[in-house]
């Protein structure tokens, strides 16, 4: 499967009469966006605000972040099974508005994620302090049940990202990157002397606000399967996870999975990137047994010699991570894990909730328990009402002057466990 990804670089975002891209500036029509969102009568209010890098703006609480893209050629359309038909994606040509995002913001439960600062000391922990953001603040109908509000919020973000992405359809991209994975046996033969590397991508799958979707299928219902890496670039995987800000994988992060990106960079040079095994992180232990058995079986069956495994979340998912690590290793395949850590404020406690002997190679994405201080921001998009109830916040976190003292895990994607961040750990 081969995809050409055309990157249209966005340097600014402004409101305009027409949603379009002109010389690197994304213009968005506010009224059309609001009208689109309010087609869903589960939502009774929608507002659109813009947040640009360097501005003294704080956005909270954040539900999802999505990169605007459009399917130019090739089968299917963006976010299959969610806002478009289920037709397979990942081939042909797709354009992405790189440097722009759509962010959904709105209270679903009193303790959800998470915040983004566009400037100041917290900005460096979040990639969205450097993007031009179209922030959609949504309001649910009175008494709307939580599951319905989550669904409505999720779909609103995807619809707006696809609507904005359309502005890139006929624009000549600044850069076109070609990604190709051949069918398995051909791929193996293409680089016969290079090690065959697979990526095991664990999807969050526990329940309300903890779900992920593959072509619209709830990941709780999946058995492990094999995906061409380019499918993810067209939105085959969408986030419904919205509870732990620091290591929640936003839909943006699925579209821009850094492990897939880096494996492709080295594909044909020092490794042969064979493809992606998708698996889940269910609460039911028998599901974990089944999924980890099947993940190891697939890795072995597909001839991987080395595997990178990433997870989403902490606690329950750490057990899946270790089961996958152990069973894949026992098939004679080398395994490296990538994850973030929660070793307590002093960094001295166990980082993960589980471990196995085979987990001897791990790349850390940082400590979510670190305390940081954020100054007040001139403008707040959304509300600060829930800062103290977000994960990472606590009573007294929000000071009277609007500054915040909280654990790093309150910042969206700060320690994201697929490595799309700037934190690490070293042993001494």
């Amino acid at each position, binding site marked *: 499967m081969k995809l050409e990804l055309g990157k249209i670089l966005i340097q600014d975002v402004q409101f305009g009469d027409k949603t379009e891209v002109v010389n690197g500036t994304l213009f968005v029509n506010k009224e059309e966006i609001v009208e689109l969102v309010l087609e869903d009568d589960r939502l009774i209010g929608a507002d659109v605000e813009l947040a640009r890098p360097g501005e003294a703006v704080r956005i909270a609480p954040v539900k999802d972040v999505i990169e605007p893209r459009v399917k130019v050629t090739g089968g299917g359309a963006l976010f299959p099974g969610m806002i478009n038909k289920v037709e397979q994606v990942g081939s042909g040509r797709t354009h992405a508005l790189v440097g722009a995002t759509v962010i959904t913001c709105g209270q679903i*439960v009193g303790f959800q994620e998470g915040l983004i600062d566009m400037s100041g000391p917290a900005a460096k922990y979040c990639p969205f302090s450097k993007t031009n953001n179209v922030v959609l603040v949504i309001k649910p109908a009175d008494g709307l049940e939580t599951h319905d509000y989550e669904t409505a919020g999720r779909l609103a973000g995807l619809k707006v990202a696809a609507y904005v992405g359309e502005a890139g359809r006929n624009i000549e991209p600044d850069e076109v990157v070609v990604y190709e994975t051949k069918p398995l046996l051909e791929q193996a033969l293409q680089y016969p002397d290079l090690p065959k590397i697979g990526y095991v991508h664990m999807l969050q799958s526990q*329940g309300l606000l903890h779900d992920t979707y593959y072509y619209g299928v709830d990941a709780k219902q999946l058995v492990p399967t094999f995906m061409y890496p380019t499918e993810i670039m067209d939105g085959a995987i969408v986030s419904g996870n919205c509870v732990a800000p620091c290591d929640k994988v936003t839909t943006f992060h699925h579209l821009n999975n850094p492990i897939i990106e880096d494996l492709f960079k080295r594909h044909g040079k020092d490794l042969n990137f064979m493809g992606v095994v998708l698996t889940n992180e269910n609460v039911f*232990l028998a599901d974990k047994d089944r999924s980890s058995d099947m993940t190891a079986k697939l890795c072995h069956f597909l001839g991987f010699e080395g595997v990178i495994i990433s997870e989403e979340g*902490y606690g329950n998912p750490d057990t899946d991570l270790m089961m996958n690590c152990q069973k894949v290793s026992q098939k004679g395949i080398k395994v490296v894990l990538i994850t973030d850590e929660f070793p307590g404020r002093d960094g001295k406690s166990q980082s993960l909730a589980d471990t196995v002997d085979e987990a001897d190679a791990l790349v850390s994405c940082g400590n979510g328990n670190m305390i940081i201080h954020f100054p007040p921001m001139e403008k707040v998009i959304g509300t600060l009402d829930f800062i103290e*109830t977000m994960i990472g916040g606590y009573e007294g976190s929000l000071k009277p002057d609007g500054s915040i003292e909280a654990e790093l895990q309150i910042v969206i994607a700060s320690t994201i466990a697929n490595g799309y961040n700037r934190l690490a750990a070293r042993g001494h």
Partner: protein
Amino acid sequence: MNKLIITNNSLVFEKYHSNYDVIYLKDAGYLDVLYAARDRIHLSYVLLTHPMAGSLKPNQTPYKSIIVAQGENGLDIESVVLIENSISAAQKFLRDRGTPSWSEKILSDFRTVDLSLMEDAIQKRSLIAI
């Protein structure tokens, strides 16, 4: 195999007590639910769900639900290790900062999410043998 649901969440109790065995630890804390599961595991019960289900941390949500089942093979070491690790992890978070006294609206949200974490496990997996 008889499932036993151990919970301090009134929504879980209300939804399932008619059709399943539920130990409802009303007004008990998060750790109390883990301890109750641990005590039964030492009497040869087996864990069916992961004690650390959900991304809400132990010093954030006051609610916890765990499903166990009467085992037939004596002490299940994997269940012992898993519950002890979970207790240890919960104690680590609670040591850093205790669970706040939340408003009723937020408590209701926590109950809703905890129930959701259990629903898939309870309803769709009832025929699986351990």
